[in-house]
Structure formats: structure tokens, C-alpha cells
């Protein structure tokens, strides 16, 4: 503390040491334990946000899966129906199959 010039930019080590001693806290371990316990009960905002988006995302993904499943089922049913009609025509079991095949070949 020998120099009291306001422009002097060096630390006063002696005063700093005395201040650290005068302000020294007790029981840092207990303090840290208390904060860790409170941290466990409080999540950072971004984790809350992430959790919120997770559930929204889960709902959206579920809806997408349902829609995709419905579309796939519809598509498979149509293909199956088309195939069964073709088989019936070729087998000649369907009444009027020969007429339909003839008209198809004429169109070609």
C-alpha cells in the first residue's frame, strides 16, 4: 500500500491478502453440497426447452408415423385390388373377361 496513485494499475498484494483473509468463508464443502442439491432440483432453461421440444417432437413423430402407415396401407390395398382384377381377367373366371381383354388389345 505504498503507492496510492489512481493511475497505478498494479494490485496491492498486501491489502489483497488481508482482505481475502478478512472475508474468508467457512465450510466450502457444505456450501458446494448445498448448491449441488439445489442444482438437481433446478434444470437449466435450455434443458427445459429441450424437454418441451422433445414431447412436441414425440407427438409430431407419432402423428407422422400414423399418417405414413395409413398411406402405406391404402397404397398396398389398391395394389392388391389391381392385381386380383388382373388375375381374374387372365384366368377368364370373371364374366366378360374376354370382351375386356379384346377391347384392351384393340386399344393397344
Amino acid at each position, binding site marked *: 500500500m505504498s503507492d*496510492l496513485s489512481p493511475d497505478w494499475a498494479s494490485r496491492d498484494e498486501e491489502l489483497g491478502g488481508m482482505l481475502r483473509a*478478512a472475508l474468508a468463508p467457512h465450510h466450502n464443502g457444505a456450501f458446494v453440497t448445498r448448491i449441488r442439491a439445489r442444482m438437481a432440483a433446478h434444470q437449466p*432453461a*435450455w434443458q427445459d426447452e429441450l424437454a418441451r421440444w422433445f414431447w412436441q417432437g414425440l407427438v409430431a413423430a407419432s402423428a407422422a408415423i400414423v399418417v405414413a402407415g395409413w398411406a402405406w396401407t391404402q397404397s398396398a390395398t389398391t395394389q392388391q385390388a389391381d392385381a386380383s382384377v388382373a388375375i381374374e381377367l387372365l384366368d377368364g373366371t370373371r364374366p366378360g373377361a374376354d370382351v375386356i381383354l379384346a377391347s384392351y388389345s384393340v386399344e393397344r
Partner: protein
Amino acid sequence: MIGVDEAALAARAAAGDSDAFGDLVALHGPMARRVALSLLEDRQDADDAAQEGFLSAWLAIGRYDARRAFRPWLMQIVVNAARDLRRRRRVRTTDSLDHVVTAARDDPARDAGAADLGESLRAALATLPERQRLAVVLFDAEGYPQAEIATMLGIPEGTVKSDVFHGRRALRKVLESVKEEWDE
């Protein structure tokens, strides 16, 4: 905690690693509590403020830029928490320091010698304006550069220099009176 890679811990904490943040609490807890005590004059209040500061920092960890130093970011939050608590509890004073603070305000050089050095210093700090306390403690005790203190407190660097000067002068007056008491 010697040799701890603070930047790595801070980066892990920023990614949501609570264990890493806990290690940072252990590392910076004493400093945060000292700074809070310099403002609040009461150990319980100081611990409450430091705790609030750490918890606020944890909750806002997503906004921390891991490329920048963690310590000033944290300390700014702790200082704000201590200032908030100080405003809320302005009327509350500590029994243990009341008589010393009052005496120091009346005549710092007269009664300071009656108490031990630590108590005298805390009492002398309590007589300083809030900004001067922070400037001296953050600069001389905690080693923050004056430019960083200026950013932290939202004041010009020249004001920090001036606050350090006036704060040191007031504290030295008290310390000299304590030494005189010891010499007698």
C-alpha cells in the same frame, strides 16, 4: 482443485454437465462468497447471495459463450445477486459488526484498533460506498483486471481506478490505526 482446466470444465458445464458445473462451484465458491460478503457484511446473507448467483448461472448456462472466460461471467451474476439481496435487506444489519461499523463511520482511526484486523477490515469496507468496495475487493483481493471490473460493473475504467484509489486510502487509514493500537 489445483491444475483444474477451467475452460474445459466451463465448456462441459455449458453443454449441460452438472458435475462440471459443481466442480466450478467448488473452484469459485470461496471467491464468490468473499465478494458477496464485502457487499452484504453478513456471512449468511453473503452465502445466500452467492448461492443464488450460482443457481442463476446454472439456469442460464445455455447463454454462456464457452469461448469466453467463465470467471467474469459468473462473478457478474454473483455481484448482481448480492446487490439485489442488499437492496432487499437494506434495513437489516449484523449484530456482530454493528458496533464496529458505527464506530468506524464516526471515527475510523479511533475504534478500529479495538477489534481484530479482519473485523476492522470488514467494518472499514462496510463504510465504503458499494462501488468502491467492489473495486478494491475485485482488483486487489481477487485479481481482476480493471478493464474487466469496469465491464462487470458497467462503469468506465477510469472510475474503477478512482474507486480503487479512494477505497484503498480509506482502508489504509483503518489499518494504520490498528497498527498504532498494536504498537501502544
